[in-house]
């Protein structure tokens, strides 16, 4: 948000450096059940972001003192791999990843029926293999698919995407350049069946009008992502239907 560049992020025709229109998100691809040990897993690419999410549980909660006698707790670990960014990131958690882990766990808490598993823990691991702005949203989007894949009872699947502002334009799903040199970033996650907001952050500088426009874009895109999430899950479990037809 603070950087400066002479780069034109949005040209006169309203086209962005990667060729997208203002309200267009990057191509999304989701694969379900990619890991063998985890109870549920998903691999997600959105633009140049590459994210792996895995879910273990519900299982016994460690450390014990975190147990809640009335419901399961969701523990999330978001981690950027050392080679995922242009400068090598030192391995291990930093303040940023701790904060992101917390808000992702809280966003998932709203949809998971945690009350079914008192004292247990549902553990969500998000590994960022390659980062290009928007990894917290990509991570959350993948994590909620992994939760569904793990057979965890939940009300809905959570999609997440950011909108923001660069070169004075309100834009959907900022890429790295737009994020670095732009003016604002608003990551959003919702429960699509009710349009409730479960994750919202903002940094930068926006008017109320711009903010509302960004939010409208992000809401719309969340519903698009939701369809991709559902299709990916259904494809994974529908494979054997082919066999059935070929019998």
């Amino acid at each position: 948000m603070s950087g400066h560049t002479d780069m034109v992020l949005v040209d006169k025709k309203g086209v962005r450096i990667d060729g997208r229109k203002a309200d267009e998100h990057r191509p999304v691809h989701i694969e379900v059940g990619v890991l063998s040990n985890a109870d549920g897993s998903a691999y997600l690419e959105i633009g140049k972001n590459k994210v792996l999410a895995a879910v273990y549980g519900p299982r016994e909660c460690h450390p014990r003192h975190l147990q809640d006698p009335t419901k399961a707790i969701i523990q999330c670990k978001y981690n950027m791999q050392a080679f995922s960014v242009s400068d090598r990131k030192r391995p291990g958690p930093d303040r940023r990843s701790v904060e992101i882990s917390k808000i992702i766990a809280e966003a998932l808490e709203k949809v998971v029926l945690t009350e079914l598993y008192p004292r247990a823990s549902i553990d969500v691991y998000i590994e960022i293999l390659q980062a290009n702005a928007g990894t917290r949203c990509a991570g959350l989007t993948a994590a909620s698919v992994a939760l569904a894949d793990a057979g965890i009872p939940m009300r809905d699947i959570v999609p997440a995407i950011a909108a923001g502002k660069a070169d004075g334009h309100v834009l959907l799903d900022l890429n790295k350049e737009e994020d670095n040199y732009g003016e604002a970033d608003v990551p959003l996650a919702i429960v699509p069946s009710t349009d409730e907001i479960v994750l919202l952050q903002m940094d930068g500088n926006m008017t109320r009008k711009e903010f509302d426009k960004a939010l409208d874009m992000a809401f719309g895109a969340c519903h698009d992502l939701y369809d991709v999430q559902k299709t990916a899950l259904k494809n994974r479990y529908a494979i054997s239907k082919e066999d059935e037809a070929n019998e």
Partner: protein
Amino acid sequence: MSEHVISEIKRDHIMNLLKEGKREDGRGVGDIRNIQITTNCIESADGSARVKLGNTEVIAGVKIIPGTPFSDTPDSGVLTMGAELIPMAHPSFESGPPGEDAIELARVVDRGIRESGMVDVKQLCITAGEEVWMCFVDMYALDYDGNLFDAANLAAVSALRTATIPGEQYSKGENRPLPVTCTPISVTSVKIGNNLILDPNFDEEMISSARLTVTTDDKGNFRAMQKGGKGSITRDELSLCLDRAVEKGKAVRKIIG
């Protein structure tokens, strides 16, 4: 409590099969699992590889950045390896800084690559005594079904073989391939009862008493070894491990081309 308990029935079954030279997944004692390698899968890295060895999966990424040489090797680049056993990969892995298993893993892979001279560090000098290329290899276990040593070795080696020195990014000349001279391959055996088997899966690894990792170079010379586990191996067993490491090393080198 995070220790995994293997049932007595599973243990006995594996042992009984081994008496006839058989294994649960149908392999013979000297067989390794199927290898799948995807290189250059991470554009933000200067070299990368995702490797599947059966159900064990490791990703390795290389970052090459300018830095200061060590004072005792002023004209050589620096090679650094790290491994993380992240909790995504197995229920028994916990988050936190690398423990002794992760550190041993990184050091054994490091030794094979370093001692074989795979990366020609002399060619990583930018200005002698002042600036050299520092090559960081970070490995992450993504899915653990035994034998992380060989999977991590393959991932690191494959990532290095496809790595590019990003000269242009730092205005230090043109981009060029990382100079590599050979392909060190590690082959790990474990001992269960009095049987030696190659490339153990998780269950086999859990009931094994000793482990031996042997890294060979293209000529079949030995470049690194590590014995692990609380059990012992005899001289004859060692000899068998060495023969197999040479033979399988050759086969694996053929697979990765």
